[in-house]
């Protein structure tokens, strides 16, 4: 049964949290994710959930407390953005290393400085190597659906890793759109109860977490963590299949939009994919073979599948909503290029940086990108491989 509503992305995620009814939430306000802990606090205040809400004094403590509560055996979550995620950086690694399936609702916002409250992906991209599963959402519906699926992936016995469900600050977090919610009991049935194998409060078997590991063990621990993260790929697909049976909405590792026969392909993450799809539609209507690949799962990175999906593309644009300061490419560009290289595919790949600090990106901007891809193919001249879109020169 689905319930039609009109909600912002933040409200949608808060509702998913209420439906999941987690054990502990620790959080600290930061624009544009503040609304999530606020809304959730009102659920706590009104007895709509059984959750203990810990109003910590910082995001570092939010994640630290979540690590404590999850390790204790309680399903735990938090929400943050930007500087908040940066402040958590140290403990993100600890959460992953301790194999704690904490869920984090990330509302993407640029990192300071200059201080700016609007969307780009510098926050989550900075944390991409912390060992967390990362899933990105295009709109409110996806943010909600991804959050409902989060614990099923994170808590899976073959995975047991923390998960970050990302959506774009303001663009989806604040914009009110139509949405289809699941019934509370359907979400509860889908997510199920949390019964960890080992936890601090198990009176039959005490547990010690967070050891000092000498060089003889540390490397094996990281490798075991990698294997678990890799398992998240298949689990994400399996969970999506079950979710589709429940909701009728289908998800994969990524979305292919008119990609199968596309000569010119764009790879993109987040809300701008919606705008880019409009550009694809317009160009398709004009007879151009253009298509799009929208990332859903970024960690682990499904490189082989993405390379396979792009194998017919003649020229590719990778759209990065963050600056990596290496002078060559952004994080998405680096991943896609290395995946293509390993698959022995050598199309020209142009890496665009766009939308930093909330810079608007329009259908026309994306039409320009596709025009540039076509020109590269026609002139056989790749030109600059690393470009900025809609920059005021």
């Amino acid at each position, binding site marked *: 049964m689905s319930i039609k509503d009109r909600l912002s992305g933040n409200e949608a995620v808060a509702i998913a949290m209420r439906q999941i009814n987690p054990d502990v939430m620790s959080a600290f306000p930061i624009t544009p994710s503040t609304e999530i802990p606020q809304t959730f606090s009102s659920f706590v205040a009104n007895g709509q959930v059984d959750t203990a809400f810990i109003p910590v004094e910082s995001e570092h403590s939010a994640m630290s*407390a979540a690590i*404590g509560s999850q390790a204790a055996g309680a399903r735990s979550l938090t929400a943050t953005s930007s500087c908040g995620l940066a402040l958590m950086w140290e403990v993100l690694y600890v959460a992953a290393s301790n194999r704690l399936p904490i869920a984090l609702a990330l509302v993407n916002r640029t990192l300071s400085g200059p201080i700016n409250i609007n969307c780009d992906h510098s926050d989550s991209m900075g944390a991409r190597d912390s060992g967390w599963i990362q899933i990105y959402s295009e709109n409110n519906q996806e943010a909600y659906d991804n959050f409902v699926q989060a614990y099923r992936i994170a808590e899976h016995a073959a995975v047991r890793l923390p998960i970050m469900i990302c959506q774009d600050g303001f663009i989806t977090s604040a914009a009110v759109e139509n949405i289809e919610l699941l019934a509370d009991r359907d979400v509860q049935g889908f997510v199920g109860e949390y019964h960890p194998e080992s936890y601090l409060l198990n009176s039959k078997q*005490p547990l010690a977490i967070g050891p000092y590991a000498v060089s003889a063990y540390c490397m094996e621990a990281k490798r075991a963590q990698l294997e678990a993260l890799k398992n998240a790929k298949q689990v994400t697909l399996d969970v999506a299949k079950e979710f589709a049976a429940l909701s009728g909405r289908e998800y994969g590792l990524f979305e292919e939009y008119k990609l199968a026969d596309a000569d010119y392909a764009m790879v993109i993450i987040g809300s701008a994919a919606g705008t880019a799809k409009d550009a694809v539609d317009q160009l398709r209507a004009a007879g151009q073979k253009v298509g799009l690949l929208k990332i859903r799962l970024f960690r682990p990175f499904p490189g082989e599948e993405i390379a396979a999906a792009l194998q017919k593309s003649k020229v590719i644009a990778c759209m990065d909503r963050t600056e990596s300061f290496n002078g060559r490419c952004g994080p998405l560009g680096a991943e896609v290029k290395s995946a293509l290289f390993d698959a022995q595919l050598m199309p020209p790949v142009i890496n665009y940086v766009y939308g930093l600090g909330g810079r608007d990106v329009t259908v026309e901007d994306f039409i320009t990108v596709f025009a540039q891809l076509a020109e590269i193919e026609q002139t056989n001249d790749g030109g600059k491989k690393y470009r900025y879109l809609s920059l005021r020169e």
Partner: protein
Amino acid sequence: MTYNFKEIMNKKERLAPGHRMCAGCGGTIAVRNILRGLRDQDQAVITCATSCLEVSTFMYPHTAWQDSFIHNTFENAAATCSGVQAAYEVLRKKGRVDGTYKFIAFGGDGGTYDIGLQSLSAAMERNHDMVYVCYDNGAYMNTGIQRSSATPLYADTTTSPVGKLSKGKPQYRKDLTAIMVEHNIPYVAQTTLFRNMRDIHEKAARAIYTPGAAFLNVMAPCPRGWVYETADIMEICRLAVDTCYWPLFEVIEGQWVLNYKPTNKLPVEEFLKKQGRFKHLFKKGNEQLIEHFQAEVDKRWRVLLERCGS
């Protein structure tokens, strides 16, 4: 309350031998005596900040801790413990935990006075039912004796070294116990290894079984950093108390109580001269440094007497 030394010392150890703390480390003695404050039938979850204590007691694949234990990072033991404790409340309501659990967080002075102060302050303000224990050895010992805000005036440390232009740490130590009292939590106490451990034992038991947040500051000498003969630890602690450098007191629901008033308050140099970290104070021409030190001890002692109404 009667205190039976033999009986208390014979309680089952909750920190097993075989860990890698230095022989005679005050930190280990402090921890074992705090854990003796737990009733045998109760379980505990111990949180520990990165420190000598943590890296020496839980080296994969061995742990010395008999109770459940979590180490997170250097600065977040209080926040981590608060998360564990919140989880307990919820899971207990849901019938998913058996028995009674108590929550104790340990941090060194670096992890408590300095980098972990924010996390500690907030967890205490939220009044979680937990005890935070600072084992104060007056420097960052684990990384090689660097000064902290708990390091006493003039102490020679590796980041406040004595040199041609330096007499050791130029600043007084922070009075963290008083800062914690200002949080208006149910119980705060300062203690050390004194006489037959009665003071630390009673304060531990009281802190653990007081509902809400409690804070204990335990002076825990480090033979390596303080530079004294390992066997002298009890004498060093006695001198700290009898010189009023480290007074024993507790604050119960806002009421300050002095637990021990030396009949013969000793000059602070009795405490200082036993330790290599202060040896420069006893060089000719440095007499006024000891006077400064004494003046500060006296000032703080007077304030404490006033607060305790004694």
